[in-house]
């Protein structure tokens, strides 16, 4: 019987709109979480796939010595895909021509991630190859064709074997830079290595094993592999590569997660407000039912059934709308990026459903428990139970739930704590501000009966309710400002790193004698070129006389061997300069003076990796010669500038006598390509590395992330609007009473309208101002700590906040009230009854 009554009440309450707001709020939470986490998940997967493509795998094991084949067998046992690569340089012979080229021998599984792009002839169209060359065949980069004067189908000698040239190699996923005309690359089937007899004891050969698969499987495999690894072996993933794209991806991931948290907070506010309002409106019916003999158990069953139905219905609605929204969003993203996004995993569904259920239960259970406690005596004493209106337990529970949800969703206690604490500070400040405003009317000396004094009186009268509204508005505005500013800063930061005239090719291996001619040729052809830096390959061999160990792995979170000083495990490009590069920042010490002797300037991350500090002495090994240099400055390097950058720069006195080649970066526009190729033909020892497609990839990712941020922003704006609507709805009854009283006392319609408008304007502007201050402070911390951006204050938002807050709250609030104000007094009285 109770169920029938409960269903009847539920359907009526729902039709009357009593439950609509709470349902909408839960649905909003669900759709926000589902949309965000699904879009994040799908973009994240896409990003991961793209990222993996940069190394053609998820992880790589690299060594200059043969890597045991049983690693691959073991990896397959861990359900991982594997591939094998071997790099060596060798001479190619054809048509009485010979050419030194870099050969990459690949197993049939290569590439595990990304695409190999080839052409069937030099003039053919680019197509994707599913795997590398078959046995007996080789693929050449375009420059090799020109150097050897061969065409597809010709025979070429590589070591002791002959091969048919099958394809023109256009793009390899794991080549960090694409091959320009003078980069001589050869792709060979791994099975043909023995036939070439090129690899002999003492040959300079590099080996790679590629792994791809589920992240958990990779972790398990690495746990097995780690103890077997030798000093000369290095394990890395895409995140370990210090590339601009990896940094941008990490930032994007952090940002989308952060946006997800903000959506949850807004939804939580809407749910808490709506649930409280719904329960308050049920006080009288519950008191009446108790008076008429309804037992506490019956009433509990009725309202718990309501909660379950609200939960079920709104979660379903949220899931359906959320799925639709993310389909539209991801469809748009996929279309604009000419790229299909992978299907979402089950995680977003689970996260969304549990968020909906948690929100429904945690934000409404306390008001519901209060509702069950409403005494039947309320039918005679109407104010009984009103003391439950402001429940500290409800506030604490809501706060705790928000914190736990934020933590669960972000999986980042630091960002959760920053957001949560900044919000608490905002709440405290707003309470202070509320008091100032509430006392302001009298101090301003406004004449009684003016719209402004009515507005302030109205704010004063509903002190507690308005404080809650002020806090909610501020929260919404704060989150909006936070997102807008963060988005702008991030995008402009990315944009500034990649200006439209960023270099798109590196010129390397320029001899000192070629330098003046190359420089004048580039100037003559109007090709933009950055500075020329002398370079020489060398290794850090010791620190303060102590030999450094070779670093074997870069796996995330792996602890260093405490006993050994970590090294970098490879040769570095060293340079020497009299003046500091313009795009580097000295963060410690001083740049070399003219009298500097044997000094070194070290990049900050290298300082950490070598575990050295200012004043330490580094011993360098170049060929068989070694020398010492003292660290006198530390530099911050922006690796994303695509200009030549160096981990270690030495003072000119140290390396001046060593034979060096020069490196620079150039910007080549469409028609300059031919002239640039001519330069390379004239100077065959100079190599050019094209980074144009690499830059395009970065730009495409930035554009994709920008779209995602815009989408997230739209959702947060929607959430903010709904919070505001729920707040205004909660105060509607009280406002109706006021309007009736004012009209009865003879107030003109215009006075009431203006008073209402000014009340919202004041609330919104105050909330906006404090929100701007708080969000700017939070931004400062978040930008510095989480996104590694230069933290800065944004005074313009201190104006923008109040302005946006005032307009947003007054327009939306006024629209909500307008219908009520149009009603005549009798209509209002009836609505109130």
């Amino acid at each position, binding site marked *: *019987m*109770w169920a*029938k*009554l409960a269903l*009847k*009440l539920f359907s*009526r*309450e729902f039709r*009357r709109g*009593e439950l609509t707001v709470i349902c909408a709020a839960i649905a909003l939470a669900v759709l926000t979480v589902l949309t965000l986490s699904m879009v994040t998940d799908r973009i994240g997967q896409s990003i991961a796939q793209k990222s993996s493509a940069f190394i053609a795998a998820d992880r790589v094991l690299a060594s200059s010595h043969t890597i045991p084949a049983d690693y691959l067998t073991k990896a397959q046992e861990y359900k991982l895909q594997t591939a094998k690569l071997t790099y060596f340089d060798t001479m190619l012979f054809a048509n009485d021509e010979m050419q030194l080229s870099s050969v990459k021998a690949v197993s049939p599984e290569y590439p595990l991630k990304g695409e190999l792009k080839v052409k069937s002839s030099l003039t053919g169209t680019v197509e994707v190859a599913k795997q590398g060359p078959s046995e007996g065949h080789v693929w050449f980069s375009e420059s090799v064709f020109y150097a050897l004067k061969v065409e597809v189908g010709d025979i070429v000698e590589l070591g002791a074997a002959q091969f048919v040239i099958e394809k023109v190699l256009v793009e390899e996923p794991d080549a960090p830079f694409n091959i320009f005309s003078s980069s001589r690359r050869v792709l060979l089937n791994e099975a043909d290595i023995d036939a070439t007899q090129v690899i002999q004891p003492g040959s300079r050969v590099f080996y790679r094993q590629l792994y791809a698969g589920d992240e958990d499987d990779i972790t398990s495999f690495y746990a097995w592999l780690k103890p077997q690894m030798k000093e000369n072996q290095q394990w890395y993933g895409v995140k370990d590569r210090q590339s601009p794209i990896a940094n941008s991806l990490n930032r994007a991931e952090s940002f989308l997660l952060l946006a997800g948290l903000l959506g949850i907070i807004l939804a939580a506010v809407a749910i808490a407000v709506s649930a409280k309002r719904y329960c308050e409106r049920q006080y*009288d*019916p519950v*008191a*009446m*039912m*108790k*008076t*008429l*003999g*309804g*037992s*506490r*158990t*019956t009433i509990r069953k009725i309202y718990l059934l309501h909660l379950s139905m609200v939960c079920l219905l709104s979660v379903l609605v949220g899931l359906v709308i959320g799925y639709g929204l993310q389909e539209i969003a991801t469809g748009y993203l996929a279309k604009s990026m000419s790229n299909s996004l992978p299907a979402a995993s089950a995680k977003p569904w689970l996260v969304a459903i549990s968020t909906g259920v948690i929100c429904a239960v945690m934000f409404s259970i306390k008001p519901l428990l209060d509702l069950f406690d409403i*005494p*039947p*005596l309320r*039918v*005679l*004493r*109407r104010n009984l139970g009103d003391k439950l209106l402001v429940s500290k337990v409800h506030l604490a529970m809501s706060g705790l739930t928000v914190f736990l949800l934020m933590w669960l969703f972000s999986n980042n206690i630091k960002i959760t704590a920053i957001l949560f604490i900044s919000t608490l500070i905002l709440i405290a400040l707003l309470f202070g501000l509320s008091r100032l405003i509430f006392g302001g009317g009298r101090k301003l000396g406004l004449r009684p009966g003016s719209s402004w004094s009515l507005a302030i009186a109205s704010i004063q009268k509903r002190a507690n309710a308005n404080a809650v509204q002020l806090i909610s508005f501020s929260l919404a505005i704060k989150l909006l400002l936070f997102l807008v500013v963060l988005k702008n800063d991030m995008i402009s930061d990315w944009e500034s790193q990649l200006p439209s005239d960023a270099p798109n090719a590196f010129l390397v291996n320029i001899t000192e004698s070629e330098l003046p001619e190359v420089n004048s040729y580039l100037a003559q052809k109007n090709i933009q070129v950055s500075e020329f830096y002398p370079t020489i390959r060398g290794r850090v061999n010791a620190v303060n006389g102590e030999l450094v160990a070779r670093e074997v792995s870069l796996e995330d979170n792996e602890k260093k061997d405490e006993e050994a000083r970590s090294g970098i495990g490879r040769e570095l490009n060293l340079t020497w300069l009299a003046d500091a590069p313009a795009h580097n920042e000295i963060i410690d010490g001083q740049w070399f003076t003219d009298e500097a002797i044997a000094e070194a300037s070290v990049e900050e991350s290298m300082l950490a990796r070598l575990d050295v500090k200012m004043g330490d002495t580094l011993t360098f090994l170049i060929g068989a010669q070694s020398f010492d240099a003292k660290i006198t400055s530390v530099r911050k390097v922006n690796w994303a500038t695509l200009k030549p950058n160096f981990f270690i720069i030495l003072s000119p006195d140290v390396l001046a006598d060593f034979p060096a080649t020069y490196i620079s970066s150039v910007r080549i526009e469409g028609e300059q390509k031919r002239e640039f190729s001519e330069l390379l033909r004239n100077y065959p020892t100079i190599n050019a590395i094209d980074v144009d497609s690499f830059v395009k990839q970065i730009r495409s990712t930035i554009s994709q992330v920008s779209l995602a941020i815009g989408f997230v922003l739209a959702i947060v704006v929607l959430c903010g609007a709904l919070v505001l609507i729920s707040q205004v709805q909660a105060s509607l009854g009280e406002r109706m009473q006021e309007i009736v009283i004012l009209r009865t006392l003879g107030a003109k319609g215009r006075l009431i309208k203006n008073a209402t408008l000014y009340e919202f304007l004041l609330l919104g502007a105050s909330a906006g101002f404090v929100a701007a201050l708080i969000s700017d402070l939070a931004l400062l911390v978040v930008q510095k700590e989480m996104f590694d951006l230069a933290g800065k204050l944004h005074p313009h938002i201190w104006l923008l906040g109040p302005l946006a807050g005032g307009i947003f709250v007054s327009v939306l609030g006024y629209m909500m009230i307008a219908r009520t104000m149009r009603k005549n007094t009798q209509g209002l009285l*009836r*609505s109130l*009854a």
Partner: protein
Amino acid sequence: MSALSQLNIIQVKGLSKTVTTLEGDLPILSDITFNVKSGDSVAVVGTSGSGKSTLLSLLAGLDQSSKGEIYLDGEPLHTLNEEARAALRAAKVGFVFQSFMLVQSLTALENVMLPAELAGEKNAKQQALELLEKVGLSHRVEHYPSQLSGGEQQRVAIARAFIGTPKILFADEPSANLDSKNGKLIESLLFELNQSHGTTLVLVTHDETLAQKCQHILQIEAGQLVKNTSEVIANVG
């Protein structure tokens, strides 16, 4: 159960109610004793704040006394917990309030059926329709409270009070919120149904004229019973 208690549907002995305030304990009712015979109509009168509504809340089991005993149809109300008091109300008590107290999301018919549904009765609809007809609202059964006038809402409340044929009806200023025409209509309906259903009526009012229509008057002033026209009480007293 004695013969006297069978006659006396309400027995009140030494009833007191004290509330705790910041200034200390504040007595609302002190040592009230009276009985009400089954089928009688009793008016509880007094000035505002005299304690008459508190007396009503205690008699109906909506609140608990600080001291004293209340027997409702022989049931010791003062010993019952909230759930048992609710069950007793469901079985034997009807209410009419000054502010109607209808559930806004239920129609007139559903509001009348509500007590029966809460008590788990299955055939409440027919009885509710008959009661609505008696109060002259057979044409408004599907209307919601917000679609009814004040007088109509109170008539729905009266119909609701009589469903399940309660033994006792408590009415708190039933005509105070209505104009005199509707007020009189409601008053006559109350007495009519009181007589036809043999229900005991306890009516709280500050309206002397209305009080005079009852068989007995209990006058409360400053929490004390200062006047009791009931002969039964005199005999017992």
